[in-house]
């Protein structure tokens, strides 16, 4: 048995050994199924920059994700990194989604469940899980759902400090997104969105944000999007105050 030795512990290498035979079998089955049913890969990458009252100056985010559509099912995963003076960890978040298309009285809907992990620092992590319902009538895109959130002090930090209370659980938060699309030409599209969530950021339901997006169909399978977002604070306290803004350039390619 090989061993990796570091300063304080011995890790069994067998436990993390890559198993090529199993991988090859699974991947072959996956490819075989993919070639014989209606399926589609999609990938996105986005570069975001902005400033808000909590970011200690400008920040930069790079977000990427892939999704795979298999008949009525879709699985997606995304990850993001942050470059910011306010944040110790470069890794911003990891997210996993499962979506399913269905109809009710011939009206198409999509249901989504997700989980995301945001390691804010060595002292604080955020875990979110949620459920969303998508409905896209004509020029609108509507999403409604809820999430639950846990703030957690990581075990390693808690054990060093002998903490017994490591979590705070916010049980229920409404999630909503309402977008209106206006086609400007065959290639350009303008979209206005009011929502309380965006990429990895899920605000409390009383903290909505506004996003304006300009989409451009670059090729048959490739799209560009330029987003400009505005954050406010205190709206439902009836004392609205500027909080921040962002700009984001995204690229999507469907295989």
């Amino acid at each position, binding site marked *: 048995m090989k061993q990796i030795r570091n300063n304080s512990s011995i890790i069994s290498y067998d436990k993390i050994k890559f198993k090529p035979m199993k991988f090859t079998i699974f991947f072959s089955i996956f490819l075989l199924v993919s070639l014989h049913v209606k399926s589609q890969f999609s990938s996105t990458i986005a570069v975001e920059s902005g400033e*808000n*009252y*909590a*970011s*200690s100056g400008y920040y930069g985010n790079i977000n990427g994700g892939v999704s795979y559509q298999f008949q009525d099912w879709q699985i997606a995963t995304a990850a993001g990194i942050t470059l910011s003076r*306010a944040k110790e960890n470069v890794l911003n978040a990891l997210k996993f989604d499962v979506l399913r298309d269905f109809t009710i009285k011939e*009206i198409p809907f999509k249901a989504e469940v997700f989980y995301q992990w*945001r390691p*804010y*620092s060595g*002292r*604080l992590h*955020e875990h979110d899980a949620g459920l969303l319902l998508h409905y896209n*009538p*004509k020029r609108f895109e509507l999403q409604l759902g809820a999430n639950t959130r846990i*703030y957690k*002090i990581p075990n390693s930090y*808690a054990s060093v*400090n002998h*903490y017994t*209370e*490591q*979590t*705070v659980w*916010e*049980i*229920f*938060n409404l999630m909503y997104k309402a977008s209106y699309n206006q086609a400007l030409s065959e290639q350009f599209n303008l979209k206005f969105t009011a929502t309380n969530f965006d990429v990895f*950021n*899920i*605000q*409390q339901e*009383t*903290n909505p944000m506004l996003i304006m997006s300009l989409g451009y169909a670059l090729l048959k399978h490739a799209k560009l999007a330029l987003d400009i977002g505005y*954050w406010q*604070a*205190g*709206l*439902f*306290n*009836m*004392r*609205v*105050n*500027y*909080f*921040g803004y962002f700009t984001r350039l995204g690229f999507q390619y469907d295989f």
Partner: protein
Amino acid sequence: MNDDFDDLKTDCMRHLFYLMYILLLPSCIGELDFTGFVRSTDRIEDRFKISMVWNASNPYQTITVAGESYQLLVAGDVHVGTTANLHKFVDKGSQTDISAMVFIGDNATGKEEDYERFNQTVENNAANPFFVMTGNHELYFDGWKHFQRLFGSSVFYFSIETPTLKDLYICLDSGSGTIGKSQLQWLKNLLQEKRAAYDQCIIFSHVNIFRDHHTGSTNPPQQEVLVLVDLFEKYHVNMVLMGHDHTRAKDVLGNTTYLTLDALRDGLKHASYLQLYKTAEGTMDYEFVKLQ
């Protein structure tokens, strides 16, 4: 299907318009200032600057106590108007065993006459030091100018010194639903430079950090919540005391206890205030005191 949807869309737009009209029409009637949905005349960055100017000529207070133990009283959401519960609180806070009183926001409606009523009740009856903070209601009806005239600063700290130790009490202005860029930097600098010299560190904020139940009252944006919670853990803040939600709640995360106070407003069945103790052993303890 399409026609139905167009009708629905038209109905929605019409009802949205009516709703906005109903909300904005009585914008200066009663205790709520609905214009704050669309505009604020008193931004947090401006209030912070004005507060720092006032602080420069009015040094932060130090309260010295004779023994190792002492008590503070903390009240949230008095909402003057009426002053029956406020009188009871100030009477209790003026006893000789109380070192100071803290009002953690939504003390008045924002209207000048209510500010004056609150100030007269406290000023004329308080026999011990008191500290007044802003909530969102203080800012209604352009109320900040009255707050500033009467109390000077909305961002400050004070300390309490026992014969052997001293404790740090930091009062934040979160009335706008965010503490803002400059106040956040001030808080970071304060904790970095001073925290190590103090035994206990207590932070007061009107707006709640966590969302303990489904409510319409608004927390700071999520980015700010993460920064603050991480900061409180990093600098071993012992307690964060808040109001705003009117319903008591307790969360403990690592070293920090987060307490939301009941409202002290007249007419509420569960009106209470917080009695905060520094024990002779050097720990913090507390008790919610219900008003009859």
